[in-house]
């Protein structure tokens, strides 16, 4: 055969409505339990954060010269996770890949929530969080602006641009679906969805502008995603810190973000698939496609990692060698090995097999391991360079306290709770896009096969 036809069947609109909208209206006890658990973790993390704000950062394991520890590696990790949703959706929309339709919404939502979570970490790690607004470019009586020469300001601007773009990119395409929900809902939910739907009716003008807008946003947001991850890498790359000061970090962070983000997209859609019985919509076909993208990301990630590795290894610059050695032969050796194992040695060969890529359970387990590996990768970027930086008289080691570990659980719980709430607000599969697919697609008999044909502009 060799050919997978997508989607294998075209469902009537009513059934799509029923399948996809059901999670918005029907709430099971499982949802409540999940909300309770993740909400509890979220509140505990929040309490930890406020505790640290109230008592001082001495409750963390940070000290001189390890000024950035788990907080920043969590930040980089979650920023990375936020990458793939909007990026994959924008890329596929721009390339008019029709198979994107069932996964874009879930992926875009992932971006927004991961970004909302990630953006908290720069605040968490501030010594005086309550004065965070000093970093914003605003007119004030002190006649002092922020320092546009600082990578942190670039970072803040990039996050704002990407967050703004991603929220709009998630919200505007959801408006037609809100209109559907409005038509199906009752009571308070109807009021809520009426508000969200903005009075959408589906006129020709509305559709034309929306499509144009989505296209423009996709065009604008895609490079911003690249710029944001690059700028995050510049938080490190602009410094004089050994093994941070490298030009490979830009693409390396972008591809690392794509890699971990893709893994999370797959994890999430698989969970949705099982939770809501969406086997009809999210099929092995999608896993295969996403798996291929992830395979490419994994290859490029390893390629760039190896670039970075061999440059330091061969160059043996004294400063860099110190950090290189503690990563590859010293106390961080096992972290490094775990990362390489899950991200390359296991992931690469497995992803090469279609049979593996199309197996939901296998992919689910692998993607989770990839993200553990990517979290370690962030840790290995941030911490080793700091523990033995500068005059060796000041070298130390770093042992995170319970505060840092709580605030490592916090983003996961926060992300989960946000996602769970979002399930009750919007359909996680874009209804109108699925339907558009149905309208646009037909089967065409060609020779002995019935092939899929697409009507396109």
């Amino acid at each position, binding site marked *: 055969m060799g050919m997978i036809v997508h989607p294998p069947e075209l469902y009537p609109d009513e059934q799509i409505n029923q399948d996809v909208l059901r999670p918005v209206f029907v709430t099971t006890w499982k949802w409540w339990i999940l909300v309770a658990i993740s909400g509890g973790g979220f509140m505990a993390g929040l309490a930890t954060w406020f505790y640290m704000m109230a008592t001082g950062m001495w409750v963390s394991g940070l000290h001189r010269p390890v000024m950035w520890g788990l907080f920043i590696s969590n930040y980089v990790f979650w920023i990375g996770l936020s990458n793939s949703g909007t990026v994959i959706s924008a890329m596929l929309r721009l390339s008019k890949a029709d198979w994107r339709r069932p996964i874009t919404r879930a992926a875009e939502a992932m971006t927004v929530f991961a970004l909302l979570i990630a953006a908290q970490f720069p605040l968490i790690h501030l010594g005086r969080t309550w004065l965070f607004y000093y970093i914003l470019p605003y007119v004030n009586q002190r006649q002092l602006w922020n320092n546009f020469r600082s990578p942190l300001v670039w970072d803040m601007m990039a996050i704002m641009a990407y967050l703004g*773009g991603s929220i709009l990119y998630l919200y505007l395409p959801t408006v037609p679906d809100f209109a559907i929900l409005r038509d199906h809902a009752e009571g308070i939910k109807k009021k809520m969805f009426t508000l969200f739907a903005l009075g959408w009716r589906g006129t020709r003008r509305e559709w034309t*502008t929306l499509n144009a807008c989505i296209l423009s946003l996709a065009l604008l947001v895609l*490079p911003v995603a690249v710029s944001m991850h690059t700028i995050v890498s510049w938080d490190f790359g602009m410094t004089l810190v050994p093994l941070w000061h490298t030009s490979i970090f830009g693409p390396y962070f972008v591809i690392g973000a794509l890699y971990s983000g893709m893994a999370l997209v797959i994890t999430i859609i698989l969970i949705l698939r099982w939770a809501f019985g969406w086997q009809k919509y999210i099929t092995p076909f999608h896993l295969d496609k996403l798996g291929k993208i992830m395979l490419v990301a994994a290859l490029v990630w390893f390629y760039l990692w190896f670039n970075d590795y061999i440059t330091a290894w061969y160059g043996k610059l004294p400063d860099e060698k110190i950090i290189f050695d503690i990563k590859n032969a010293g106390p961080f050796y096992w972290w490094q090995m775990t990362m390489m194992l899950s991200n390359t040695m296991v992931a690469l060969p497995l992803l090469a097999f279609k049979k593996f890529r199309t197996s939901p359970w296998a992919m689910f387990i692998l993607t989770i391991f990839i993200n553990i590996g990517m979290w370690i990768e962030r840790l290995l970027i941030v911490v080793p360079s700091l523990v033995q930086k500068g005059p060796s008289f000041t070298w130390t080691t770093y042992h995170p306290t319970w505060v840092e570990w709580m605030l490592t659980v916090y983003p996961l719980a926060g992300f989960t709770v946000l996602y769970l709430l979002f399930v009750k607000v919007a359909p996680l599969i874009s209804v109108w896009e699925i339907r558009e697919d149905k309208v646009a697609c037909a089967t065409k008999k060609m020779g002995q096969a019935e092939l899929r044909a697409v009507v396109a502009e």
Partner: protein
Amino acid sequence: MADVYVVAAFCEVDAAADGIKRLLAADFPARNIDVLTGVPYPPEIWGLPAPRSNIRKIAALFFVIGAACGFTVASGTGWLYPLPTGAKAIISLPAYGIITYEFATIFGVFAAAIATLLEARLPTMKNLPYHPRVSEGWPTVTVRCADSQNIDGAESLLRLAGAQDVLRHAV
């Protein structure tokens, strides 16, 4: 007497397109006819003049404006309050290029979104014609009629074309 919309819901796209064809043939002006759909159909299928969108141009324009603003804010604040830091120029072009780009994108993104809302005339609080079946995928033709004669005419034309359900919506 206020205008009345005739709202006709069809099962089939072809039937809806046929209804529009009949309306146009009966001299209903194209600007009074619209179609409400649950999915974006290619505009050509209705036989009505396709609406045009300027979103991309507006986004591009604001991208440029944003770029100008970004560079002005970055270099202007530096120039007004020159604080030397670590032998980086007060107007550090490479650094300000980044700010310029991010400002441009923020402007472009928000301009695109706002322009979309303006162009699509959303959000609206107006009492506009709608049929609840639109969200179930029924293409729905709306015709704006000024007098009762036209209303009846339009309704019969649309029913002839195969409209499943016809409503009258007074504005």
